[in-house]
């Protein structure tokens, strides 16, 4: 197992785009090659070593055997772990936008909070956030028909608005509250929200959304039966009937 540890040299005022911080990119490279990978800060093209210290084993390894540890504040660093297929990226603090973009495998774990667009268009692998996640968690790009297609996301805190927009597969589990419109246009993914939310499942055609807390439900959902899951009572709805959707929405009983 090869572990590479990265830390920012300074705090970033202007955000940094670092899609090269990924297990796939690091795996075949020596440390000095990793040091010279390109990152961008605004319109300035820089190398990784301009902005970060890089330490760890020098010898290349397979992607599966590569672990990247990110120490310090990455809340202004975007696109970490983009497209990774295996291995582990471990963020010990907060992470910026678009972490785990188009991720296909491996593990991305974030000890702090994640900014917007975490795991956009994810296809596989696993993402765990100990803190909160921003908007568009597991969403798609603007104008696309498909967001996340596979894999697993777990957020221990709260999530922002539009989580799982255009979800086409995979599962998202939020232990806290979720912002407005979770699972909009869901086409087959699974969402669990431990807390409360607002207008879940707008225009969903397939898939399941479970809300343990309270949820304002759209007038285009059809109330069906009360079901028991793990000893808890849920009101079941089907919808979104504006599009003759066949999605399932379950909301903890006791809410509106």
């Amino acid at each position: 197992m090869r572990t590479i540890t990265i830390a920012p040299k300074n705090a970033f005022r202007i955000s940094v785009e670092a899609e090269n911080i990924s297990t796939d990119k690091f795996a075949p490279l020596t440390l000095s090659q990793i040091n010279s990978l390109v990152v961008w800060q605004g319109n300035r093209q820089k190398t990784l070593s301009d902005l970060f210290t890089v330490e760890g084993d020098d010898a290349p390894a397979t992607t599966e055997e590569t672990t990247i540890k990110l120490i310090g504040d990455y809340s202004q660093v975007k696109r970490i772990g983009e497209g990774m297929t295996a291995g582990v990226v471990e963020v010990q603090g907060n992470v910026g936008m678009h972490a785990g973009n188009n991720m296909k495998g491996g593990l991305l774990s974030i000890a702090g909070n994640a900014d917007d667009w975490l795991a956009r268009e994810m296809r596989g692998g696993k993402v765990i956030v100990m803190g909160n996640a921003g908007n568009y968690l597991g969403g798609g790009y603007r104008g696309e028909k498909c967001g996340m297609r596979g894999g697993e996301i777990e957020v221990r805190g709260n999530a922002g608005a539009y989580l799982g927009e255009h979800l086409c597969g995979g599962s998202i589990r939020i232990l806290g509250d979720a912002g407005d419109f979770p699972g909009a246009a869901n086409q087959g993914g699974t969402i669990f929200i431990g807390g409360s939310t607002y207008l879940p499942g707008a225009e969903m055609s397939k898939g399941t959304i479970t809300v343990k807390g309270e949820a304002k439900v759209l007038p285009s959902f059809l109330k069906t039966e009360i079901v028991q899951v793990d000893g808890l009572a849920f009101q079941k709805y089907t919808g979104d009937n504006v599009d003759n959707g066949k999605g399932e929405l379950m909301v903890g009983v006791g809410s509106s």
Partner: protein
Amino acid sequence: MIIKGGIVYDPANGIYGDEMDLFIDKGRMVEAAKGEEIDARGLLVMPGGVDAHSHIAGKKVNTGRIMRPDDARIGTEPRTAVCRPSTGYTVPNCYAMGYRYARMGYTTAFEAATPILEARHTHEELEEIPIIDKGALTLFGNNWQVMECVRDKDLTKLAAYVAWGLRAAKGYGVKIVNPGGGEAWGFGGNVKSQNDIVPNFDVTPAEIIVGLAKANEMLNLPHSIHLHFNNLGKPGNYTTAIETLDLLKDLKPSRMRQVVHVAHMQFSAYGGTSWRDFESKAPAIADYFNCHNHATMDMGQLLFGSATTMTADAPLEYGNARLTHNKWSNHDIELEESSGVVPMVYNRKMLVNAVQWAIGLELALLVKDPWKVLMTTDHPNGSPFVNYPEVITLLMSKPKRDLEMATLHEQVPKRTTLAGMEREMDWTDIAIMTRAAPARVLGLEDKGHLGPGADGDVSIYDLRPEEVDTSLDHVLVKKALANAKYTIKGGVVVSKEGQILATPPGRTFWVDAAVPQADTDRLMVDLEEKFAKYYSIQIANYAVQDAYLPHAQIIRAGLPVLSEVA
């Protein structure tokens, strides 16, 4: 400039693969010249490509961009010392259009559909497309003034209006799209045949088409009417196509060219009564073209993958959107037209798409005379224009077609005749379909050939026609066609091996047709009333100002011939 030792295909001048030197001076082909030498020894040399039907500029195209950021992100190329940034695949930004045409060896492309009212926008975009020469066809088929003239059988007033409209739009020719259907769409309807009455206007699509064709010939316009049939895109529509063509067979062209050019024939060569029993009627259409000489067509080839459909046929687009449950933009233009935009993905395993793919190829291969068939994909309706090398290699290689066929829905051989087709086109056929014929069909005298006086637009490919087996080496051929070794535009090397070296602005062609003042005077009475009562802008602000065409190339037509006729 001297282009040395190329194997030249210039069918308009009877040159079919001769080894020769070419000379360019002051942007034009000449008999002899000095200067920069380009080594083209043994390489394929043709005139710069000409695209006679492509949606490259205007409201529709920009609507496609605005509703498709998902498409824009696909083709992102950063700015360079020479180039502005590129984006998009089916709906590229203006810069990408110029660069991508030039890389393929194309130097001219015509926007296929512009309403007069929105022509200012079209010219803003055309001017922003670098390198290539351009023009825009003007929509007349659902125009109130046109329908009223046709209803009143006032042909001279109609001709005066066409001339006025072309001048107002700085347009090149007469485009007709689903005549009458666009007006009916103003209240959500359509016409079902060329003989239906257009609601509120008491004319039929057939009368509109014939009227505009006659006006077109009265005005001696360089291009013929350019027609998108009624019922386009619907099963069984081949009868509409043949019956409509038959309406025009006895008309005399005013120039040595067709009387009607049929846009994207593939979409109007459908048999069957529904999508279930949908089948190719390409043989019947090809038969008609083989037996008649008044019509030309462009293929409108469909390729698998992503496309963005955009057309003035708005009811068709509404149907597309409902059928595919996709995003839908519509845009009606007061007193003139309607239009729509719907993204599309064509799938080789979908029988309908696979049959459509085959129909385009059948048409091109079954029509015997390549001068009658232009190679297009109706960009970006059938596929984006960057895929022309795919279409060309499909036409040139039976093995390639067989490879493709093997991946399609298994019913394709039963619903089309493509499987049995042995014909493989040669470089002469291709040079005609992509250069000589589009120029002749459009009436562009200085395009599509390499004779003295022609524009100095030349494409040179890294292919040795005397060595390469275009049937077996289709992979190699496709690659070479995608990035010309040299593209020369007006005597300047604009692209070399895929790299853009220079971005001179292209010209915009438009046609100024003179008509008797008395006809215009009669016309203005009608128009002033229309602007006072119905248009949402003043007549003073209607016509495209000269400021929008800093590189205009005006082609004169009209009056002298009118008086001869009289």
